[in-house]
Protein backbone atom coordinates (compact mmCIF):
# COMPACT_ATOMS: atom_id res chain seq x y z
CA UNK A 1 0.00 0.00 0.00
CA UNK A 2 1.26 3.42 -0.96
CA UNK A 3 0.47 5.13 2.36
CA UNK A 4 0.16 8.81 3.06
CA UNK A 5 3.73 9.96 2.47
CA UNK A 6 3.64 13.10 0.31
CA UNK A 7 0.41 11.85 -1.31
CA UNK A 8 -1.42 15.06 -0.44
CA UNK A 9 -0.57 18.70 0.09
CA UNK A 10 -1.91 21.78 1.81
CA UNK A 11 -2.56 24.28 -0.98
CA UNK A 12 -4.58 26.98 0.71
CA UNK A 13 -4.64 28.70 4.08
CA UNK A 14 -6.94 31.38 5.43
CA UNK A 15 -7.58 33.21 8.65
CA UNK A 16 -9.67 36.00 10.16
CA UNK A 17 -8.17 38.72 12.35
CA UNK A 18 -7.37 37.59 15.90
CA UNK A 19 -8.55 39.62 18.90
CA UNK A 20 -9.78 39.34 22.45
CA UNK A 21 -13.17 40.25 21.05
CA UNK A 22 -14.49 40.07 17.48
CA UNK A 23 -18.06 41.19 16.84
CA UNK A 24 -18.97 38.36 14.45
CA UNK A 25 -20.17 35.00 15.70
CA UNK A 26 -18.33 31.69 15.49
CA UNK A 27 -20.16 30.51 12.36
CA UNK A 28 -19.50 33.72 10.44
CA UNK A 29 -15.83 33.62 11.37
CA UNK A 30 -15.66 29.99 10.21
CA UNK A 31 -17.16 30.95 6.82
CA UNK A 32 -14.68 33.78 6.39
CA UNK A 33 -11.64 31.63 7.18
CA UNK A 34 -12.78 28.79 4.92
CA UNK A 35 -13.51 31.08 1.98
CA UNK A 36 -10.15 32.81 2.47
CA UNK A 37 -8.35 29.44 2.37
CA UNK A 38 -10.17 28.37 -0.79
CA UNK A 39 -9.39 31.70 -2.42
CA UNK A 40 -5.74 31.27 -1.45
CA UNK A 41 -5.78 27.85 -3.14
CA UNK A 42 -7.68 29.08 -6.20
CA UNK A 43 -10.36 26.43 -5.70
CA UNK A 44 -14.11 27.14 -5.89
CA UNK A 45 -16.27 26.23 -2.86
CA UNK A 46 -18.41 23.97 -5.06
CA UNK A 47 -15.41 21.66 -5.55
CA UNK A 48 -15.06 20.86 -1.84
CA UNK A 49 -16.19 17.31 -1.05
CA UNK A 50 -14.52 16.66 2.32
CA UNK A 51 -14.50 18.40 5.70
CA UNK A 52 -12.65 17.79 8.92
CA UNK A 53 -12.99 19.59 12.22
CA UNK A 54 -12.46 18.95 15.90
CA UNK A 55 -14.51 19.19 19.03
CA UNK A 56 -15.27 22.19 21.22
CA UNK A 57 -16.65 24.10 18.26
CA UNK A 58 -20.38 24.56 17.75
CA UNK A 59 -20.42 25.17 13.99
CA UNK A 60 -21.13 21.85 12.28
CA UNK A 61 -20.60 20.59 8.76
CA UNK A 62 -24.21 21.20 7.72
CA UNK A 63 -24.11 24.83 8.79
CA UNK A 64 -20.78 25.53 7.16
CA UNK A 65 -21.45 23.65 3.92
CA UNK A 66 -24.76 25.33 3.20
CA UNK A 67 -23.44 28.78 4.08
CA UNK A 68 -20.37 28.82 1.87
CA UNK A 69 -21.81 26.74 -0.98
CA UNK A 70 -19.87 23.48 -0.85
CA UNK A 71 -20.66 20.71 -3.32
CA UNK A 72 -21.78 17.22 -2.32
CA UNK A 73 -19.66 16.03 0.60
CA UNK A 74 -18.50 12.41 0.58
CA UNK A 75 -16.23 12.56 3.62
CA UNK A 76 -16.55 14.43 6.91
CA UNK A 77 -15.01 13.74 10.27
CA UNK A 78 -14.85 15.39 13.65
CA UNK A 79 -11.95 14.55 15.94
CA UNK A 80 -12.31 14.57 19.72
CA UNK A 81 -10.31 16.11 22.56
CA UNK A 82 -10.31 19.77 21.57
CA UNK A 83 -6.78 20.99 20.87
CA UNK A 84 -5.51 17.42 20.55
CA UNK A 85 -7.41 17.13 17.29
CA UNK A 86 -5.95 20.03 15.32
CA UNK A 87 -3.42 18.11 13.22
CA UNK A 88 -5.73 15.11 12.99
CA UNK A 89 -8.08 17.15 10.80
CA UNK A 90 -5.40 17.39 8.12
CA UNK A 91 -4.46 13.74 8.72
CA UNK A 92 -8.05 12.60 8.17
CA UNK A 93 -8.38 14.65 4.99
CA UNK A 94 -5.05 13.31 3.72
CA UNK A 95 -6.26 9.75 4.37
CA UNK A 96 -9.56 10.38 2.64
CA UNK A 97 -7.96 11.96 -0.41
CA UNK A 98 -5.12 9.43 -0.67
CA UNK A 99 -7.64 6.57 -0.61
CA UNK A 100 -10.02 8.15 -3.09
CA UNK A 101 -12.86 9.00 -0.72
CA UNK A 102 -12.69 12.67 -1.66
CA UNK A 103 -10.71 15.14 -3.76
CA UNK A 104 -10.78 18.57 -2.08
CA UNK A 105 -10.78 18.74 1.70
CA UNK A 106 -11.19 21.67 4.07
CA UNK A 107 -10.19 21.66 7.73
CA UNK A 108 -11.08 24.56 10.01
CA UNK A 109 -11.34 25.91 13.51
CA UNK A 110 -13.44 28.85 14.64
CA UNK A 111 -13.45 29.96 18.23
CA UNK A 112 -14.97 32.60 20.48
CA UNK A 113 -12.81 31.98 23.50
CA UNK A 114 -11.77 35.55 24.14
CA UNK A 115 -15.33 36.79 24.51
CA UNK A 116 -17.05 33.48 25.21
CA UNK A 117 -17.37 31.43 28.41
CA UNK A 118 -14.50 29.45 29.93
CA UNK A 119 -15.37 25.75 29.66
CA UNK A 120 -14.11 24.95 33.19
CA UNK A 121 -16.66 27.36 34.70
CA UNK A 122 -19.46 25.06 33.57
CA UNK A 123 -20.12 23.08 36.75
CA UNK A 124 -23.41 21.72 35.42
CA UNK A 125 -21.66 19.73 32.69
CA UNK A 126 -19.15 18.16 35.10
CA UNK A 127 -18.57 14.69 33.75
CA UNK A 128 -18.55 11.93 36.39
CA UNK A 129 -15.34 10.38 35.09
CA UNK A 130 -12.72 11.52 35.89
CA UNK A 131 -13.84 14.88 37.34
CA UNK A 132 -15.02 13.22 40.56
CA UNK A 133 -11.39 12.50 41.45
CA UNK A 134 -10.13 16.05 40.96
CA UNK A 135 -12.66 18.88 40.89
CA UNK A 136 -14.04 18.64 44.45
CA UNK A 137 -10.48 19.31 45.68
CA UNK A 138 -10.21 22.50 43.68
CA UNK A 139 -8.22 21.12 40.74
CA UNK A 140 -10.58 23.02 38.46
CA UNK A 141 -8.91 24.31 35.34
CA UNK A 142 -6.66 22.89 32.65
CA UNK A 143 -3.86 25.08 34.03
CA UNK A 144 -4.17 23.39 37.45
CA UNK A 145 -4.02 19.94 35.86
CA UNK A 146 -0.93 20.76 33.80
CA UNK A 147 0.76 22.66 36.64
CA UNK A 148 0.66 19.42 38.65
CA UNK A 149 2.67 17.64 35.96
CA UNK A 150 4.92 20.69 35.53
CA UNK A 151 5.82 20.72 39.25
CA UNK A 152 6.69 17.04 39.16
CA UNK A 153 8.67 17.51 35.94
CA UNK A 154 10.68 20.37 37.46
CA UNK A 155 11.32 18.29 40.59
CA UNK A 156 12.46 15.18 38.74
CA UNK A 157 14.62 16.82 36.11
CA UNK A 158 15.73 20.12 37.62
CA UNK A 159 13.87 22.19 35.06
CA UNK A 160 13.34 25.80 36.15
CA UNK A 161 11.04 28.74 35.64
CA UNK A 162 13.75 30.20 33.43
CA UNK A 163 13.24 27.28 31.06
CA UNK A 164 9.53 28.03 30.91
CA UNK A 165 10.34 31.70 30.40
CA UNK A 166 12.54 30.75 27.43
CA UNK A 167 9.45 29.22 25.83
CA UNK A 168 7.23 32.22 26.57
CA UNK A 169 9.92 34.60 25.31
CA UNK A 170 10.53 32.79 22.02
CA UNK A 171 6.81 32.84 21.25
CA UNK A 172 6.50 36.49 22.24
CA UNK A 173 9.52 37.50 20.17
CA UNK A 174 7.99 35.87 17.09
CA UNK A 175 4.64 37.54 17.79
CA UNK A 176 6.48 40.87 17.92
CA UNK A 177 7.40 40.21 14.27
CA UNK A 178 3.86 39.20 13.25
CA UNK A 179 1.40 42.07 12.70
CA UNK A 180 -1.54 39.63 12.89
CA UNK A 181 -0.53 38.45 16.38
CA UNK A 182 -2.51 39.65 19.37
CA UNK A 183 0.79 40.43 21.15
CA UNK A 184 2.44 42.10 18.12
CA UNK A 185 3.27 45.31 19.96
CA UNK A 186 3.78 43.84 23.44
CA UNK A 187 7.38 42.74 24.17
CA UNK A 188 8.02 40.45 27.13
CA UNK A 189 10.92 40.74 29.57
CA UNK A 190 12.28 38.33 32.14
CA UNK A 191 11.31 40.76 34.88
CA UNK A 192 7.72 40.90 33.64
CA UNK A 193 7.63 37.11 33.63
CA UNK A 194 9.21 36.60 37.05
CA UNK A 195 7.01 39.20 38.77
CA UNK A 196 3.72 38.37 37.06
CA UNK A 197 0.81 36.98 39.03
CA UNK A 198 0.45 33.27 39.66
CA UNK A 199 -2.36 31.38 37.99
CA UNK A 200 -1.54 27.97 39.44
CA UNK A 201 1.89 27.69 41.04
CA UNK A 202 4.36 26.85 39.55
CA UNK A 203 2.71 28.41 36.46
CA UNK A 204 2.27 32.18 36.14
CA UNK A 205 0.25 34.39 33.82
CA UNK A 206 2.81 34.20 30.99
CA UNK A 207 2.85 30.39 31.10
CA UNK A 208 -0.75 30.47 29.88
CA UNK A 209 -2.01 30.86 26.34
CA UNK A 210 -4.13 33.77 25.19
CA UNK A 211 -7.91 33.82 25.06
CA UNK A 212 -8.80 34.71 21.51
CA UNK A 213 -11.64 35.10 19.03
CA UNK A 214 -10.73 34.03 15.51
CA UNK A 215 -10.87 31.36 12.85
CA UNK A 216 -8.52 29.58 10.46
CA UNK A 217 -8.80 27.00 7.71
CA UNK A 218 -6.68 25.08 5.24
CA UNK A 219 -7.30 23.19 2.00
CA UNK A 220 -5.90 19.70 1.26
CA UNK A 221 -5.75 18.08 -2.21
CA UNK A 222 -3.79 15.27 -3.91
CA UNK A 223 -0.18 15.95 -4.88
CA UNK A 224 -1.20 15.83 -8.55
CA UNK A 225 -3.93 18.43 -8.08
CA UNK A 226 -1.60 20.52 -5.91
CA UNK A 227 0.68 21.28 -8.87
CA UNK A 228 -2.15 23.29 -10.48
CA UNK A 229 -2.80 25.47 -7.45
CA UNK A 230 -1.64 29.04 -6.86
CA UNK A 231 1.06 28.42 -4.31
CA UNK A 232 3.95 26.06 -3.79
CA UNK A 233 2.40 22.87 -2.39
CA UNK A 234 3.25 21.98 1.20
CA UNK A 235 3.24 18.19 1.36
CA UNK A 236 1.80 16.14 4.19
CA UNK A 237 4.84 13.92 4.62
CA UNK A 238 3.70 12.00 7.67
CA UNK A 239 0.74 12.21 10.02
CA UNK A 240 -0.24 10.52 13.25
CA UNK A 241 -2.71 10.46 16.09
CA UNK A 242 -1.71 9.32 19.57
CA UNK A 243 -3.69 7.89 22.46
CA UNK A 244 -1.21 5.95 24.63
CA UNK A 245 -2.05 2.81 26.55
CA UNK A 246 -3.37 3.65 30.04
CA UNK A 247 -3.63 7.35 29.25
CA UNK A 248 -5.91 9.48 31.45
CA UNK A 249 -6.19 12.80 29.62
CA UNK A 250 -4.77 15.95 31.15
CA UNK A 251 -4.93 14.41 34.61
CA UNK A 252 -2.45 11.76 33.57
CA UNK A 253 -1.44 10.97 37.14
CA UNK A 254 -2.46 7.35 37.13
CA UNK A 255 -0.20 5.47 34.76
CA UNK A 256 3.27 4.09 35.38
CA UNK A 257 5.02 7.08 33.84
CA UNK A 258 2.88 10.24 33.95
CA UNK A 259 5.63 12.40 32.44
CA UNK A 260 5.34 10.65 29.10
CA UNK A 261 2.17 11.45 27.23
CA UNK A 262 0.49 11.22 23.86
CA UNK A 263 3.40 12.96 22.10
CA UNK A 264 5.50 9.83 22.52
CA UNK A 265 2.85 7.66 20.88
CA UNK A 266 2.22 10.05 18.00
CA UNK A 267 5.96 10.54 17.49
CA UNK A 268 6.72 6.83 17.14
CA UNK A 269 4.21 6.54 14.32
CA UNK A 270 5.17 9.86 12.74
CA UNK A 271 8.88 9.06 12.47
CA UNK A 272 8.29 5.47 11.41
CA UNK A 273 6.66 6.74 8.24
CA UNK A 274 9.03 9.64 7.58
CA UNK A 275 12.12 9.92 5.38
CA UNK A 276 13.81 12.21 7.88
CA UNK A 277 14.35 12.46 11.64
CA UNK A 278 13.82 15.02 14.39
CA UNK A 279 17.36 16.28 13.77
CA UNK A 280 16.34 17.21 10.21
CA UNK A 281 13.40 19.41 11.27
CA UNK A 282 14.07 23.04 10.30
CA UNK A 283 11.27 24.66 12.28
CA UNK A 284 8.63 23.42 14.74
CA UNK A 285 5.13 24.56 15.63
CA UNK A 286 4.49 22.86 18.97
CA UNK A 287 1.18 23.16 20.79
CA UNK A 288 1.60 25.70 23.56
CA UNK A 289 -1.55 26.07 25.61
CA UNK A 290 0.98 26.17 28.47
CA UNK A 291 4.74 26.72 28.34
CA UNK A 292 5.26 23.51 30.31
CA UNK A 293 3.97 21.45 27.39
CA UNK A 294 6.99 22.41 25.28
CA UNK A 295 9.75 20.60 27.26
CA UNK A 296 7.53 17.50 27.36
CA UNK A 297 6.88 17.70 23.61
CA UNK A 298 10.56 18.27 22.79
CA UNK A 299 11.27 14.99 24.56
CA UNK A 300 8.27 13.18 23.14
CA UNK A 301 9.03 14.08 19.53
CA UNK A 302 12.67 13.14 19.92
CA UNK A 303 14.49 16.49 19.85
CA UNK A 304 16.23 15.54 23.10
CA UNK A 305 16.35 12.78 25.69
CA UNK A 306 14.03 12.28 28.66
CA UNK A 307 14.45 15.06 31.19
CA UNK A 308 16.41 17.31 28.83
CA UNK A 309 13.46 19.32 27.53
CA UNK A 310 14.06 22.19 29.94
CA UNK A 311 17.78 22.47 29.22
CA UNK A 312 17.06 22.23 25.48
CA UNK A 313 15.47 25.70 25.64
CA UNK A 314 18.72 27.34 26.81
CA UNK A 315 21.02 29.55 24.72
CA UNK A 316 18.31 30.76 22.40
CA UNK A 317 17.58 27.30 21.03
CA UNK A 318 13.97 28.18 20.29
CA UNK A 319 14.71 31.54 18.64
CA UNK A 320 15.33 32.19 14.94
CA UNK A 321 18.87 30.93 14.30
CA UNK A 322 18.66 28.51 17.24
CA UNK A 323 18.61 24.72 17.16
CA UNK A 324 14.85 24.58 16.70
CA UNK A 325 12.97 27.81 15.93
CA UNK A 326 9.61 27.45 17.67
CA UNK A 327 6.10 28.75 17.00
CA UNK A 328 7.26 31.32 14.52
CA UNK A 329 3.93 33.15 14.31
CA UNK A 330 3.85 33.54 18.09
CA UNK A 331 1.88 30.37 18.86
CA UNK A 332 -1.01 30.04 21.26
CA UNK A 333 0.97 31.96 23.86
CA UNK A 334 1.37 35.14 21.83
CA UNK A 335 -0.25 35.03 18.36
CA UNK A 336 -3.71 33.62 19.09
CA UNK A 337 -5.13 30.67 20.95
CA UNK A 338 -7.34 29.04 18.35
CA UNK A 339 -6.87 25.48 19.57
CA UNK A 340 -3.63 25.18 17.65
CA UNK A 341 -4.88 25.69 14.10
CA UNK A 342 -2.67 28.76 13.72
CA UNK A 343 0.30 26.40 14.18
CA UNK A 344 -0.75 24.44 11.08
CA UNK A 345 -1.09 27.56 8.95
CA UNK A 346 2.20 28.94 10.26
CA UNK A 347 3.90 25.69 9.26
CA UNK A 348 2.56 26.18 5.75
CA UNK A 349 3.80 29.78 5.67
CA UNK A 350 7.30 28.67 6.71
CA UNK A 351 7.48 26.10 3.93
CA UNK A 352 6.16 28.62 1.40
CA UNK A 353 8.83 31.05 2.62
CA UNK A 354 6.25 33.67 3.62
CA UNK A 355 6.38 33.69 7.44
CA UNK A 356 6.83 37.01 9.19
CA UNK A 357 9.69 35.28 11.04
CA UNK A 358 11.01 33.20 8.19
CA UNK A 359 13.58 30.49 8.92
CA UNK A 360 15.96 30.73 5.96
CA UNK A 361 15.57 27.76 3.63
CA UNK A 362 13.02 25.94 5.84
CA UNK A 363 12.05 22.73 4.06
CA UNK A 364 10.68 20.57 6.90
CA UNK A 365 8.31 21.47 9.71
CA UNK A 366 6.81 19.56 12.60
CA UNK A 367 3.35 20.68 13.71
CA UNK A 368 1.81 19.21 16.84
CA UNK A 369 -1.59 19.28 18.51
CA UNK A 370 -2.34 19.46 22.22
CA UNK A 371 -0.06 17.38 24.44
CA UNK A 372 -1.65 16.01 27.57
CA UNK A 373 -4.77 14.92 25.71
CA UNK A 374 -5.14 12.37 22.89
CA UNK A 375 -3.12 14.19 20.29
CA UNK A 376 -2.01 14.35 16.66
CA UNK A 377 0.93 15.65 14.67
CA UNK A 378 2.05 16.40 11.12
CA UNK A 379 5.36 16.45 9.35
CA UNK A 380 5.16 18.94 6.52
CA UNK A 381 7.73 19.39 3.75
CA UNK A 382 8.08 21.69 0.78
Amino acid at each position, binding site marked *: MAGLKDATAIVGIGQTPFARHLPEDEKTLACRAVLAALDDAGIAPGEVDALASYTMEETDEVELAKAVGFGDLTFFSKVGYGGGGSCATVAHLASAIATGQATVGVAWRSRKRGSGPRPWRNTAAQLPTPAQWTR*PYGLLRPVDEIAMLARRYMHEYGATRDHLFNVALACRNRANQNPAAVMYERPLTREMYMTSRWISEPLCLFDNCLETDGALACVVVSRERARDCRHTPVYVHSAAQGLPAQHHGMINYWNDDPLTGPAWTAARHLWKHADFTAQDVDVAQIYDAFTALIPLSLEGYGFCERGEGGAFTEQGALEIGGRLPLNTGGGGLSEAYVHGFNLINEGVKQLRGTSTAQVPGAATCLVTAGEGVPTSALLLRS
Partner: protein
Amino acid sequence: MLSPVTDPDGAPFWQYAAQGELRVQACAACGEPRFPPRPCCPHCQSFASEWRRVSGHGRIWSYVVPHPPLLPDYAEQAPYNVVVVELTDAPRIRLVGNLVTGPDAPLNSLPPDRIRIGAKVHAVFSGTGLPQWVLERP
Protein backbone atom coordinates in the same frame (compact mmCIF):
# COMPACT_ATOMS: atom_id res chain seq x y z
CA MET B 1 -17.87 23.58 46.99
CA LEU B 2 -18.19 20.92 44.33
CA SER B 3 -19.24 17.45 45.43
CA PRO B 4 -18.04 14.38 43.56
CA VAL B 5 -20.34 13.68 40.61
CA THR B 6 -19.95 9.95 40.80
CA ASP B 7 -20.64 7.04 38.45
CA PRO B 8 -21.28 3.31 38.99
CA ASP B 9 -17.54 2.53 38.88
CA GLY B 10 -16.58 5.24 41.37
CA ALA B 11 -19.51 5.04 43.79
CA PRO B 12 -17.98 2.40 46.13
CA PHE B 13 -14.92 4.60 46.71
CA TRP B 14 -17.13 7.37 48.02
CA GLN B 15 -19.33 5.02 50.05
CA TYR B 16 -16.27 3.68 51.86
CA ALA B 17 -14.81 7.18 52.26
CA ALA B 18 -18.06 8.30 53.93
CA GLN B 19 -17.42 5.54 56.51
CA GLY B 20 -13.86 6.78 57.03
CA GLU B 21 -12.23 4.02 55.00
CA LEU B 22 -9.79 4.44 52.14
CA ARG B 23 -10.22 1.60 49.69
CA VAL B 24 -9.07 1.15 46.10
CA GLN B 25 -10.45 -1.12 43.44
CA ALA B 26 -8.38 -4.23 42.74
CA CYS B 27 -8.80 -7.11 40.33
CA ALA B 28 -10.25 -10.15 42.09
CA ALA B 29 -8.58 -12.45 39.54
CA CYS B 30 -4.99 -11.18 39.22
CA GLY B 31 -4.89 -8.89 42.25
CA GLU B 32 -3.67 -5.77 40.43
CA PRO B 33 -5.02 -2.53 41.95
CA ARG B 34 -6.34 0.09 39.56
CA PHE B 35 -7.34 3.73 39.70
CA PRO B 36 -9.59 5.33 38.62
CA PRO B 37 -12.05 2.44 38.98
CA ARG B 38 -13.34 0.85 35.79
CA PRO B 39 -15.49 -2.11 34.76
CA CYS B 40 -12.73 -4.62 34.01
CA CYS B 41 -9.04 -5.26 34.60
CA PRO B 42 -6.69 -3.84 31.94
CA HIS B 43 -4.13 -6.55 32.80
CA CYS B 44 -6.23 -9.74 32.67
CA GLN B 45 -9.63 -8.47 31.44
CA SER B 46 -11.48 -9.98 34.40
CA PHE B 47 -14.73 -8.25 35.39
CA ALA B 48 -14.37 -9.48 38.99
CA SER B 49 -13.18 -6.76 41.35
CA GLU B 50 -12.88 -6.06 45.06
CA TRP B 51 -12.37 -2.93 47.13
CA ARG B 52 -9.10 -3.33 48.98
CA ARG B 53 -8.50 -1.37 52.16
CA VAL B 54 -5.23 0.57 52.14
CA SER B 55 -3.30 2.01 55.08
CA GLY B 56 -3.90 5.63 54.12
CA HIS B 57 -0.17 6.36 54.19
CA GLY B 58 1.51 7.98 51.25
CA ARG B 59 3.91 10.58 49.94
CA ILE B 60 3.36 13.85 48.10
CA TRP B 61 4.00 13.18 44.40
CA SER B 62 3.29 16.75 43.26
CA TYR B 63 1.22 19.79 44.21
CA VAL B 64 -0.12 23.05 42.84
CA VAL B 65 -1.28 26.28 44.43
CA PRO B 66 -4.22 27.68 42.44
CA HIS B 67 -4.91 31.41 42.36
CA PRO B 68 -8.00 33.18 40.91
CA PRO B 69 -9.87 33.24 38.59
CA LEU B 70 -11.58 30.24 40.20
CA LEU B 71 -15.13 29.19 41.03
CA PRO B 72 -16.38 31.47 43.88
CA ASP B 73 -16.18 28.91 46.73
CA TYR B 74 -12.60 28.11 45.80
CA ALA B 75 -11.58 31.70 45.05
CA GLU B 76 -12.54 32.58 48.64
CA GLN B 77 -9.93 30.14 49.95
CA ALA B 78 -7.23 30.84 47.35
CA PRO B 79 -4.34 30.45 47.36
CA TYR B 80 -4.85 26.86 48.57
CA ASN B 81 -3.05 23.65 47.74
CA VAL B 82 -4.02 20.62 45.70
CA VAL B 83 -1.74 17.61 46.09
CA VAL B 84 -1.28 14.26 44.38
CA VAL B 85 -0.47 11.55 46.91
CA GLU B 86 1.25 8.31 45.95
CA LEU B 87 0.00 5.51 48.22
CA THR B 88 2.62 3.57 50.18
CA ASP B 89 0.68 0.31 49.73
CA ALA B 90 0.24 0.79 45.97
CA PRO B 91 2.72 3.34 44.59
CA ARG B 92 1.03 3.59 41.20
CA ILE B 93 -2.25 4.60 42.81
CA ARG B 94 -2.10 8.38 43.13
CA LEU B 95 -4.97 10.32 44.69
CA VAL B 96 -5.70 13.99 44.22
CA GLY B 97 -6.57 15.79 47.46
CA ASN B 98 -5.78 18.65 49.78
CA LEU B 99 -3.07 18.82 52.42
CA VAL B 100 -4.67 20.33 55.52
CA THR B 101 -3.90 20.78 59.22
CA GLY B 102 -6.57 18.32 60.35
CA PRO B 103 -9.98 16.80 59.55
CA ASP B 104 -12.41 19.38 58.15
CA ALA B 105 -9.75 22.13 58.09
CA PRO B 106 -10.14 24.48 55.11
CA LEU B 107 -8.21 24.00 51.86
CA ASN B 108 -5.88 26.86 52.78
CA SER B 109 -5.20 25.79 56.39
CA LEU B 110 -1.59 24.76 55.69
CA PRO B 111 0.83 27.40 54.36
CA PRO B 112 2.01 26.36 50.87
CA ASP B 113 5.67 26.70 51.88
CA ARG B 114 5.21 23.72 54.22
CA ILE B 115 4.59 21.39 51.29
CA ARG B 116 7.40 19.30 49.80
CA ILE B 117 7.39 16.61 47.14
CA GLY B 118 8.18 13.36 48.89
CA ALA B 119 6.74 14.42 52.27
CA LYS B 120 5.00 11.61 54.17
CA VAL B 121 1.27 12.11 54.67
CA HIS B 122 -1.71 10.13 55.83
CA ALA B 123 -5.43 10.26 55.14
CA VAL B 124 -8.07 11.77 57.39
CA PHE B 125 -11.74 12.10 56.54
CA SER B 126 -13.89 15.19 56.47
CA GLY B 127 -17.51 15.29 57.56
CA THR B 128 -18.50 15.54 53.90
CA GLY B 129 -16.86 12.18 53.16
CA LEU B 130 -13.91 13.56 51.25
CA PRO B 131 -10.51 12.05 52.08
CA GLN B 132 -8.03 14.76 53.12
CA TRP B 133 -4.32 14.51 53.87
CA VAL B 134 -2.20 15.65 56.81
CA LEU B 135 1.58 15.70 57.22
CA GLU B 136 3.00 12.81 59.26
CA ARG B 137 5.45 15.30 60.82
CA PRO B 138 3.60 18.59 61.04
